[in-house]
């Protein structure tokens, strides 16, 4: 920021960048009308949708997050900038920062109107602001950094295309999981063979029922039911569906126990499922094939070896929320740990028993 003019008016470069980002964001909103920045996640969807639809047609109205630089297009731009080489990153971050500053008339405080100083600090330092979905600001309690990392890695993965489901299908399954989590009324299982396999509109009633069973009645799953489900949708889709359930359920429960709302589901990412069956899998006594070659470790760690990427994310969550591999084999933990091993195990044992889990 060098001249008086530049303090108050955006440069041509900033205007061009804002035009591109605004166009990108409006195109995105046309496909995702419920989108809101993370800070507004509690806003009712109906209001968000109405606002997002009205915005491009109404003069002087700007999208949610436009003034703060937290629109979807800004976050994508930030991702792009962070992937650039160091020199270019600094230049592009500066250009983006200036563009955000130029989106409305901002009055600098007198002591801030100095070059090389922190005018519009909140905006200038945008690159330093932790904009991850889960960060220290989003919890009222101090959550360890390792756990925040695991939560963010998982959240980002959920919306990606998997090996067997597209991003859209994965998010639709997650919606189904949430619907079942919030529904406390007892439900009756529907025979799988009676359910349609046709998408309605994104996932089929058959997939919804399998998601419901894994979410709400997992303790009742027997070999007959599981084999039928697998024969109808395939081993890969079944494993990936289970991975989605077992990754989102702990995150949502953790958020609720810490007294904050669950995060809005992520926007699905484009792309096709890979459809690749990992090598080294064979029948090992579970309902699906899993890693058997040179396997050392508890069976639960290889449960989802059919979908290794999702399993890796799951084990990262397990490592940060329960115990990492080194901690797992040690029965006496470091004194600096907030709970000792026996305290953690009493919680684990009681939770497993409440869920009627034999394992």
């Amino acid at each position, binding site marked *: 920021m060098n001249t008086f003019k530049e303090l108050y008016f955006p440069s041509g470069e900033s205007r061009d960048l804002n035009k591109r980002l605004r166009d990108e964001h409006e195109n995105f909103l046309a496909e995702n009308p419920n989108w809101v920045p993370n800070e507004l996640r509690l806003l009712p969807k109906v209001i968000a949708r109405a606002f997002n639809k009205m915005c491009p047609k109404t003069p002087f109205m700007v999208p949610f997050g436009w003034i703060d630089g937290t629109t979807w297009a800004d976050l994508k731009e930030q991702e792009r900038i962070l992937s650039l080489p160091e020199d270019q990153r600094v230049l592009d971050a500066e250009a983006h920062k200036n563009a955000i500053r130029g989106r409305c008339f901002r009055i600098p405080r007198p002591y801030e109107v100095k070059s090389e100083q922190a005018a519009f600090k909140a905006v200038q330092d945008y690159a330093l602001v932790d904009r991850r979905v889960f960060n220290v600001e989003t919890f009222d*309690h*101090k959550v*360890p950094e390792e*756990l925040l990392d695991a939560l963010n890695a998982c959240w980002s993965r959920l919306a990606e295309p998997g090996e067997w489901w597209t991003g859209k299908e994965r998010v639709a399954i997650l919606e189904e999981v949430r619907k079942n989590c919030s529904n406390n009324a007892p439900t009756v299982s529907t025979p799988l063979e009676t359910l349609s396999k046709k998408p309605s509109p994104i996932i089929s009633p058959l997939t919804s029922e399998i998601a419901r069973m*894994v*979410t709400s009645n*997992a*303790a009742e*799953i*027997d*070999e007959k039911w*599981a084999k039928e489900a697998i024969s109808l949708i395939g081993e890969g889709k079944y*494993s990936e569906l*289970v*991975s989605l*359930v*077992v990754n989102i*359920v*702990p995150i949502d*429960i*953790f958020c609720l*126990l*810490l007294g904050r709302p669950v995060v809005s589901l992520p926007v699905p990412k484009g792309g096709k499922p890979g459809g690749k069956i990992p090598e080294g899998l064979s029948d090992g*006594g*579970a*309902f*699906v094939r899993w890693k058997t070659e040179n396997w050392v470790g*508890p*069976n*639960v760690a290889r*449960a*989802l070896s059919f979908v290794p990427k999702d399993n890796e994310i*799951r084990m990262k969550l*397990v490592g940060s*929320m329960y115990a990492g591999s080194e901690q797992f084999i040690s*029965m*006496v933990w470091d004194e600096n*740990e*907030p*709970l*000792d*091993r*026996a*305290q*953690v*195990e*009493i*919680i*684990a*044992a*009681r*939770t*497993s*028993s*409440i*869920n*009627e*889990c*034999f*394992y």
Partner: protein
Amino acid sequence: MLLRASSKATEKDVSLVCAIGEPATTDIAHGDLLLKFTEAANYDSSEFKNLAAEVISCMGEGAFVKASSVVAIFNGLVRSADAIGIPLDDVTMSNTVQEREDLGLNKYQGFNNSLECDN
């Protein structure tokens, strides 16, 4: 089994029936409070807020966050075990015959997934 092993390792006396919700005293520090906390967290009980406050005041904020994260992740682990039909690890299966019998764990559906190992 890990509850038994970890309490043995620190020479604490724990009656395993506490895991199935039966009243039992344990030598584990704040064991009773943690059990009540776990039940309230899993059953979404109205008592949860008070118990959370009690955990924080007795054991600190870190303990509350860790306890919450253990409840949360085990709600995922149990679903992966049951939905994938994981058999109990061989060593655990052979070392827990009496405990499983005493605690009535063999009546859970998941026991059938481990029958091959038991025979």
